[in-house]
């Protein structure tokens, strides 16, 4: 009983904080808004930590909070499932959220929407917690859409900017495409198991492994394949997998704290979490796993390439996030669910760190986000510099840092997987290591090292290259870039403290967590793997001896060499010989154009889907409603009536109430006639 109250407290505390900050955002002073929301999230974090202890001690929970709806034989409930997977997510979400809340005090210091912003991020924390704590598909979908809503509100936070309000609508709609698949998957589950409760569904799923359904033509499809692919389409939307990734880079229009919280650490990993949660279903369909694997591999590699050519500091990190999400998805496809969750966790720390570091740089640079205008910042922003370096090293998989343990495990798991597509995926994740190291350190060098390029009188050139952030000035007192002679400055402690606190787990968490999480019994009974069909995790366990041994062994392995090569090459290209990348850009202008246009996904979507829908709508409206139905049928018959009526027009007075009166009389007359007739 005691614990159940604690479970409820975890999502409710941020919700109450959000309501205080949101409903009274016009009347309360700023300190009330941030105190209330930070207190709410802090309570949620502490409660999560207590629950974590309890869960590790072996007390899991699966129970109902209230019955949402019953209909027919179906029962939909709101409830909690508290196990190791849930509590891992709860800790990650509440910790990163707490850091971001504190950071926001500094980042949004001058923004008129301060209270509103705190309300949104607390509401997000609530939604995300409801999502991960759910014990059923209905509530999962609920949280799924709720985080989408808050993401929409936050991307469009600066609602006067045309780019922001375009980006948030795009994000919502692309996510809806994913949700479309997701809800069909949920529908299939309900139709065949009669329940949306995880425990019931997972219990019944093995019995449905051989069920086929007729979807298209004569061929029968495995039910589980169709269901899992439908569910995964949902994950593709939320976790930004190709081709539904297009919204994530644009989401950088939102303020940086939410890029860290929502679009790097937590919300975008909801899809990864979901598939891990559904492991008993995905394990029943190797076809679906192959699909997951290939999509993940494409995302991991090809989104990494795009990171190389970005000049907006946030966009580099955004493409890096896309690529890392691809890595997690690859792990899922290789049935290494625990590895995916492990990478999700380490990534949450170091990517939140990188984003917040980027945000700190942006503050230091007075809201100039173009890395070509930076350089040499290490002198002026030492804490940001060191923590960003830590984050970058963790990201590229430097041995003994957290990212190394999770990423190397993914690569090995894929190597050991033999499902269709695994060969391509292995190549993609391996090549991705080089790409990751290259773009990460390109950014790192350009920002923190080399010549100081800021504060030039003529900074017009960064206005022209892309329209992504040049209407910054709309937000009050956000001036753009440093004035001539002005120097960047280190940010206040509310900004740097979260950086330091995030840097610590970015360094150490992998070393301590890998053994229990991947090879211990931490996820026993939570993540289900069919070891006969998908043995890669089992093989991986055989090869693993200790975290230290893994780190030492890695120093001679291919991924480490690739990462090192990436760092060295980026140093050579951008510090020593900046003429080389320029020459390459000229020499391979075709590829460069392709990358610059992000493989033309946006253009195709804009033209085919958005344009097509508008065209279709116009066609149906003008052709169908206006011309055919109204023009021909309705007004045509009206004209016919009109002709007839021209004979009887002297009955017409033109007053509606006369007609109305006549109708009533008519009814009475008819009834009278009828009575008298009999």
């Amino acid at each position, binding site marked *: 009983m005691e614990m159940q109250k604690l479970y409820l407290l975890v999502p409710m505390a941020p919700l109450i904080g959000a309501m205080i900050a949101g409903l009274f955002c016009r009347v309360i002073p700023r300190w009330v808004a941030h105190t209330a929301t930070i207190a709410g999230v802090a309570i949620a974090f502490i409660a999560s930590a207590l629950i974590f202890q309890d869960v590790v001690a072996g007390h899991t929970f699966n129970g109902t909070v209230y019955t949402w709806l019953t209909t027919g034989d179906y029962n939909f409930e709101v409830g909690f499932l508290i196990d190791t997977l849930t509590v891992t997510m709860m800790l990650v979400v509440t910790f990163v959220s707490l850091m971001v809340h504190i950071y926001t005090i500094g980042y949004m210091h001058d923004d008129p929407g301060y209270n509103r912003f705190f309300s949104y991020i607390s509401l997000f924390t609530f939604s995300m917690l409801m999502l991960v704590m759910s014990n059923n598909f209905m509530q999962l979908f609920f949280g799924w*859409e709720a985080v989408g809503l808050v993401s929409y509100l936050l991307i469009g936070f600066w609602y006067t900017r045309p780019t922001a*309000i375009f980006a948030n609508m795009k994000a919502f709609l692309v996510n809806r495409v994913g949700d479309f698949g997701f809800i069909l998957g949920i529908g299939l589950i309900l139709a065949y198991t009669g329940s949306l409760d995880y425990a019931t569904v997972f219990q019944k799923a093995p019995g449905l492994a051989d069920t086929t359904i007729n979807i298209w033509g004569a061929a029968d499809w495995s039910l589980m394949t169709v269901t899992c692919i439908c569910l995964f389409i949902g994950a593709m939307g939320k976790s930004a997998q190709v081709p539904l990734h297009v919204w994530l880079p644009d989401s950088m229009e939102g303020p940086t704290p939410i890029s860290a919280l929502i679009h790097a650490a937590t919300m975008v990993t909801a899809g990864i979490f979901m598939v891990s949660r559904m492991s008993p279903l995905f394990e029943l369909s190797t076809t679906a796993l192959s699909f997951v694997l290939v999509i993940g591999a494409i995302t991991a590699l090809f989104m990494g390439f795009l990171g190389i050519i970005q000049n907006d500091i946030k966009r580099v990190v955004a493409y890096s996030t896309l690529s890392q999400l691809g890595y997690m998805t690859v792990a899922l496809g290789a049935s290494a669910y625990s590895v995916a969750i492990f990478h999700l966790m380490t990534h949450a720390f170091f990517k939140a760190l990188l984003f917040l570091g980027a945000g700190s740089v942006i503050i230091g640079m007075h809201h100039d986000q173009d890395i070509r205008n930076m350089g040499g910042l290490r002198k002026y922003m030492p804490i940001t510099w060191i923590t960003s370096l830590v984050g970058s090293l963790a990201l590229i998989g430097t041995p003994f840092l957290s990212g190394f343990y999770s990423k190397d495990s993914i690569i090995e798991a894929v190597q050991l997987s033999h499902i269709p597509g695994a060969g391509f995926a292995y190549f993609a994740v391996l090549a991705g290591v080089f790409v990751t190291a290259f773009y990460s350190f390109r950014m790192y060098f350009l920002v923190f090292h080399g010549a100081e390029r800021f504060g030039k009188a003529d900074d017009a050139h960064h206005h022209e290259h892309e329209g992504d952030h040049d209407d910054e000035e709309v937000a009050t007192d956000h001036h753009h870039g440093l004035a001539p002679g002005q120097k960047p400055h280190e940010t206040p402690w509310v900004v740097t403290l979260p950086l330091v606190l995030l840097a610590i787990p970015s360094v150490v968490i992998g070393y301590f967590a890998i053994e229990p999480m991947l090879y211990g019994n931490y996820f026993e009974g939570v993540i289900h793997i069919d070891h006969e069909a998908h043995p890669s995790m089992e093989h991986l366990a055989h090869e693993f001896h200790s975290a230290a041994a893994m780190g030492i062994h890695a120093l001679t392995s291919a991924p480490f060499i690739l990462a090192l090569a990436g760092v060295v090459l980026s140093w050579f290209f951008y510090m020593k010989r900046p003429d080389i990348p320029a020459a390459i850009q000229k020499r391979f202008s075709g590829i460069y154009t392709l990358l610059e246009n992000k493989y033309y996904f946006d253009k195709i979507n804009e033209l085919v889907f958005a344009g097509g829908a508008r065209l279709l709508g116009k066609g149906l409206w003008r052709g169908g409603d206006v011309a055919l*139905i109204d023009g021909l049928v309705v007004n045509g018959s009206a004209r016919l009536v009109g002709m007839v009526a021209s004979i009887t027009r002297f009955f017409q007075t033109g007053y509606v109430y006369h007609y109305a009166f006549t*109708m009533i009389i008519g009814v009475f007359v008819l009834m009278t006639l009828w009575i008298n007739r009999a």
Partner: protein
Amino acid sequence: MSSYPLLSLAIWIPIVAGLLVLATGADRNAPLARWLSLVGAAIGFLVTIPLWTGFDSGSAAMQFVELAPWIVRFNVNYHLGVDGISMLFVLLNSFITVIVVLAGWEVIKDKVAQYNAAFLIMSGLMNGIFTALDGVLFYTFFEASLIPLYIIIGVWGGPNRVYAAFKFFLYTLAGSLLFLVALIYLYVHSGGSFSILEWQQLPIPLASQTWLFLAFLVAFAVKVPMWPVHTWLPDAHVEAPTGGSIVLAAIALKLGAYGFLRFSLPIAPDASHELSGFVIALALIAVVYIGFVALVQSDMKKLVAYSSIAHMGFVILGFFMFSAIGVEGALVQMVSHGFVSGAMFFCIGVMYDRVHSRQIADYGGVVNTMPKFAALFMLFSMANSGLPATSGFVGEFMVILGAVKFNFWVAFAVATSMIIGAAYNLWMYKRVVFGAVANHHVAELTDINKREFLILALLAAGTLWMGLYPQPFTEVMHASVNELLHHVANSKIQ
């Protein structure tokens, strides 16, 4: 159970109140007319609350039944009663009447008494439709309720109101006549009974069932409205004053759908099965085709009107899957649509009252001058796109889930509305509310006042309550929906 004739009170209190309001006469007594209307509407709503609190959700039988002879010679009775299908609509209708009276409070300055009286009388008549268990009584209320609506559109409507009213008239005429013929057929066939409940037990050969079904279909399809007899609705909405649009969307559209459940399905179950494919096809066209049409509307009222048609497509689809989740999902959708579309039309009305334009292009950046309004409008736009935690989600979710079991591709088609619906709502919201202040009209806007806030807050409370905890709403439906499905599952051919 209460011994008061609650249903009669629900019908006649608004009508009597309406007549009293009418008696206040000219506009110099407008404040009196307003307060009298509000009191009448409020009492009318309060008397319907015991219908829910005193409802026996375990019983599928008609409750709060009142039976008195009306025209003895033809066995026509004043026979009223509610079951789990109709009860909520009586409450919704009475609730919306309060909203409508408040919505016209400062806005309507011309013929105030007549305006409010029309709404009150219409409210009573529509309660009559939802509670009538006698064919003639139903038909009388069904036809009579249109008169106030004609008047509202015709007198307080926009410039093109005559065309709109005429179009509506033309559409309904054919339907009403066929409906009357069907009623007379049933009267003869049943050996002299107008009792709807008796008709539901009547064995009817398939051919006759088919004719009956088609007659009902024409009558109800126009009211729903279903594609392709929907084109009167956008015109009617555009011309109607805000209050008229609210009632039209929130209640009047439910009448046709309710007719399907009260007449078509139980009286002609075999024909319903035979023709379900045809009806479902029409419903899917409504959802998909109309969704795309809504996307390209430049007039906000037209856009929301088209979205109503798409939402009603969900309702009809839910009915004709003949499953509990489908029918209950459809009923939930109907109630939800009452809150959400009512609120959407009110939101547009709020802007229209200030700028006198419904064109999306005339707005932009409304959030800068009306932040409170923007927040509430966001809530309803999201509810209209079926966002979880709002009522708009519940019905769509149920119907889509039911549809997957029914037929995967039907579910596929109907689920596209998740994308299209979000697209037209959010695109409109973006163009109207977000962005920099577009013109001096927007710059001069004042945020919603206390009255407008109250209305939107009431509707928001309903929307959120139903989204977060729909159980009380569906609980009362179970017994009656099961009874209905039992009817539909058993052939009436002998």
